[in-house]
């Protein structure tokens, strides 16, 4: 492996000091002159016709500047299938449907005005269970599709299917079979900074929106379309991304509240801000989907997998977001985690009157890995094989192509499994009973972008100033994960400057080149690959110019050096002759000739070269732009085929737990995580990603569940929706990074943002089974479920 100056070394993040000082500006902190505050009137029913909306009392309230409904605004449609409306006209389909909105001079007035809005409904029977929603005669959530054609059922018209090999033959050759149904709940992203935006029009009717988004450019497209719906065709949106208080997938779509802020801003001619309260966020921001996965797997007498059959059912809620494409990611572990020759996968999504769902970290992978890795343990037991040995036997290997057509380049799964087994002291701890046990689970995830959209590209501009600083313009989003930290290091490393000379500019569609969005663990992979390309282009330009300027400038250096050091005799070295573009090197912001004598005057500061080039007649400035599109393909999801990512991340996590059989409480004694990350870019940031994801995995495993009763969210606060606190994370976490040095990865690195939470829940569940012999198949694993299961086996 190559030695790097900055890559792989512990470095603190560039936005750290401002955040530590309370100076970072989140959407909550931003204000615009004359700004108004928007507030939304949500539905009081989960399914009803809207008979009448009376806004007259709200309009009369002092301080109110506008009250809007579907009746007095143009229709704006949005959503993955364009089945949602910014404001609902005839019908509400869940509790969070937006019926009206207010803009007022302060938040209190806006809130008061919303309470004055009267709505008369005709309630309709609702459907809240995906099984019920699929039954014939079930109430229709959408009576017609976005094209106006009548609908006859609640199935979402998206097909995610895969068949490979010969399933029946696989079943015939199986000696052991394990079958189970596994389910996962809705969970919330729980960003500490709630959602919000500010929308503002200029007098040419162009829009600027400060948005909490992970997809500034796709959002720009969505908002431009909305402008066109508003009778402003050809008008443009500029999306500016402020500091984000977390995102975790919640910024992968545009939201009704954003369209409402836009409508209010246009109506009032003033900037309008909408920010959710915590209760609103829990009740009205789309969570991770719940899922029900049926899985059957079989292996031969030696323990080799012979088939896998998977059926997924997802409760999508009332409208579609990008989250409706979760199965596109589920089919990746379904077809490709461990070697399995004959695979069947099918997923169905149904509309219900529940809150509609969206992306969250892992995007279907934690749901599916939960089912798959629980079932792997069950099958291992059937076959009488140790679960670690069983996984080793079936593990993925480098340079293989999986049934889905994933081209695995590097694969450190073997090392990950072995590391976890070793660190857990597997053979010794396993099956020791006494209420404590160990378990493990693995993962595969996209590690080299994830093409779920036509383009998976990322643009990047490097602009050098007169002082040798590099301004970076990149469309990816820093949401806390540390993108700007690794991007700083990548630019410094690839160009040859000090990290302090790298300035990352705020993400803004007006100044940054296009990027599809920060999802699929692609941020660092894309940005750093783009940075390397751009830096190489820039270095060529710099070295070309140095041919002309280096001899001249270093001669002046020498003159000054001699003045200071009388009697100095320079070594014999023909600068003129050696100054060839292919012989230059740039490091720490200084240009020098490779293999030249190490004399202080034989170095040229980058800024000096840039100034010389800038200020000569017919001068020039150095800027370079690249557009990196990774070598992956948009899969055909109806066939479940296609190499969705340039490379794949693997990993294994292990848990040692103790179960109190009196109370059903699970105590995590320790966790071990071994991840194939390709290459560690910044250990500090990387550890933070895994620790943080693992904590979310712990919450997913043991406590988190958005409780919905007849479509109403019953626990919209941190008291009743528990996320792990510092006291819950009270166990050692042993991390190990496996460096496989992937040839597609920037400096060898793979994406790692999501993997840390993917296998956590099944690792814990498998450890619980080892400890007390109960298999919980339904997340979260609460003490009640454990007690009930214990009672059954007694």
């Amino acid at each position, binding site marked *: 492996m190559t030695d790097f100056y900055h890559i792989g070394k512990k470095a603190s993040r560039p936005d750290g000091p401002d955040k530590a*000082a*309370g100076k970072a500006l989140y959407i909550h902190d931003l204000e615009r002159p004359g700004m108004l505050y928007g507030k939304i009137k949500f539905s009081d029913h989960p399914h009803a016709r809207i008979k009448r909306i009376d806004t007259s009392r709200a309009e009369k309230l002092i301080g109110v500047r506008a009250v809007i409904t579907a009746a007095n605004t143009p229709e704006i449609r949005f959503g993955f299938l364009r089945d949602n409306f910014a404001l609902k006209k005839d019908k509400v389909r869940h509790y969070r449907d937006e019926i009206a909105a207010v803009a007022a001079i302060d938040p209190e007035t806006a809130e008061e005005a919303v309470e004055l809005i009267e709505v008369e409904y005709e309630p309709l029977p609702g459907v809240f269970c995906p099984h019920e929603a699929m039954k014939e005669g079930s109430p229709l959530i959408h009576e017609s599709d976005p094209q106006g054609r009548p609908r006859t059922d609640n199935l979402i018209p998206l097909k995610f299917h895969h068949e490979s090999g010969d399933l029946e033959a696989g079943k015939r050759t199986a000696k052991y079979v394990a079958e189970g149904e596994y389910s996962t709940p809705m969970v919330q992203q729980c960003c500490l900074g709630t959602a919000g935006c500010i929308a503002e029009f200029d007098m040419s009717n162009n829009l600027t929106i400060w948005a909490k988004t992970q997809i500034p450019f796709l959002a720009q497209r969505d908002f431009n379309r909305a402008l066109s719906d508003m009778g402003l065709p050809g008008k443009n949106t500029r999306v500016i991304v402020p500091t984000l208080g977390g995102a975790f997938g919640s910024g992968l779509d545009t939201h009704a509240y954003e369209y409402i802020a836009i409508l209010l801003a246009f109506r009032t001619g003033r900037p309008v801000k909408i920010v959710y309260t915590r209760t609103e966020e829990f009740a009205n921001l789309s969570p991770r989907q719940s899922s029900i996965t049926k899985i059957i797997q079989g292996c031969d007498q030696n323990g080799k997998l012979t088939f896998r059959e998977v059926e997924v059912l997802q409760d999508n809620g009332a409208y579609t977001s990008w989250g409706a494409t979760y199965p596109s990611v589920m089919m990746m572990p379904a077809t490709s985690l461990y070697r399995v020759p004959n695979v069947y996968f099918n997923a169905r999504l149904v509309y219900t009157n529940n809150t509609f769902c969206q992306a969250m970290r892992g995007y279907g992978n934690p749901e599916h890995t939960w089912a798959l890795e629980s079932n792997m343990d069950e099958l291992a037991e059937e076959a009488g094989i140790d679960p670690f040995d069983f996984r080793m036997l079936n593990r993925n290997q480098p340079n293989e192509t999986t049934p889905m057509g994933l081209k695995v380049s590097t694969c450190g799964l073997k090392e990950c499994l072995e590391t976890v087994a070793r660190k857990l002291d597997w053979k010794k701890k396993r099956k020791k009973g006494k209420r404590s046990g160990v378990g493990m689970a693995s993962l595969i995830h996209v590690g080299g972008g994830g093409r779920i959209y036509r383009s998976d590209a990322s643009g990047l501009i490097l602009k050098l100033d007169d002082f040798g600083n590099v301004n970076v313009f990149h469309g990816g989003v820093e949401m806390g994960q540390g993108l700007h930290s690794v991007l700083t290091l990548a630019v410094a490393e690839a160009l040859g400057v000090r990290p302090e000379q790298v300035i990352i500019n705020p993400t803004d569609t007006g100044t940054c080149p296009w990027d599809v969005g920060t999802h699929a663990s692609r941020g660092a992979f894309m940005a750093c690959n783009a940075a390397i390309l751009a830096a190489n282009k820039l270095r060529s330009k710099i070295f070309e110019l140095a041919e002309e300027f280096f001899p001249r400038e270093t001669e002046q250096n020498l003159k000054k050096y001699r003045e200071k050091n009388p009697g100095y005799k320079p070594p014999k070295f023909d600068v003129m002759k050696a100054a060839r573009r292919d012989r230059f090197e740039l490091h720490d912001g200084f240009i020098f000739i490779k293999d030249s004598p190490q004399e202080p005057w034989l170095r040229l500061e980058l800024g000096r070269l840039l100034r010389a080039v800038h200020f000569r007649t017919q001068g020039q400035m150095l800027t370079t732009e690249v557009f990196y599109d990774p070598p992956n393909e948009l899969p055909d999801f109806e066939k479940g085929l296609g190499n969705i990512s340039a490379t794949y991340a693997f990993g294994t996590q292990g848990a040692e737990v103790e179960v109190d059989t009196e109370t059903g409480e699970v105590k995590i004694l320790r966790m071990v995580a071994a991840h194939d990350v390709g290459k560690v870019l910044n250990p500090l940031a990387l550890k933070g990603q895994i620790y*943080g994801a693992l904590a979310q995995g712990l919450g997913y495993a043991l406590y988190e569940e958005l409780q919905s009763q007849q479509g109403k969210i019953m626990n919209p606060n941190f008291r009743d929706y528990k996320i792990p606190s510092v006291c819950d994370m009270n166990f050692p976490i042993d991390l190990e990074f496996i460096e496989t040095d992937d040839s597609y990865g920037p400096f060898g690195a793979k994406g790692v943002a999501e993997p840390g939470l993917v296998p956590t829940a099944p690792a814990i569940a498998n450890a619980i089974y080892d400890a007390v012999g109960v298999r919980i198949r339904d997340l979260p694993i609460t003490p009640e479920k454990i007690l009930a299961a214990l009672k059954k086996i007694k």
Partner: protein
Amino acid sequence: MKTEISFILNGSEVRVAVEGHHRLIDVLRGPLRQTGTKEGCGEGECGSCTVIIDGRAVNSCLYPALEVEGKSVTTIEGLQGPKNELSVLQKSFVEEGAIQCGFCTPGMIMSAKALLDSNPAPSEDDIRNALQGNLCRCTGYVQIIQAVKKAARQLKGRR
């Protein structure tokens, strides 16, 4: 009905007119424009609004503004040194990777400061106790604990 109150904010006296229903956080973020203090829940459940009142870490989203009359309040803005530099504790958060999105950070640092002010050599359990009301969704807390430990060590060296 507005009432004028006066209190010490980060070492200087301030006067501000407040309504009876205003919480301390409203006054800090509103008329006083100190937006370093964050509101993550408004219900005393997340700790992102933590400030120090007369030496105690307090959730400013639950604290009635009127009650701050005559008291001394320290917010994250009060931790910075005279030459625009971070305090030892803040620096330690930066250096140890204890910050990701940063939204919990000001509250987390204020809780940690209140701890270190009263207990310069805290055990890991003391740290967990002091931070148990501060939620963080990004970091998993591991590096936050490390940062507080490191700051305690460094501050001890200075005493």
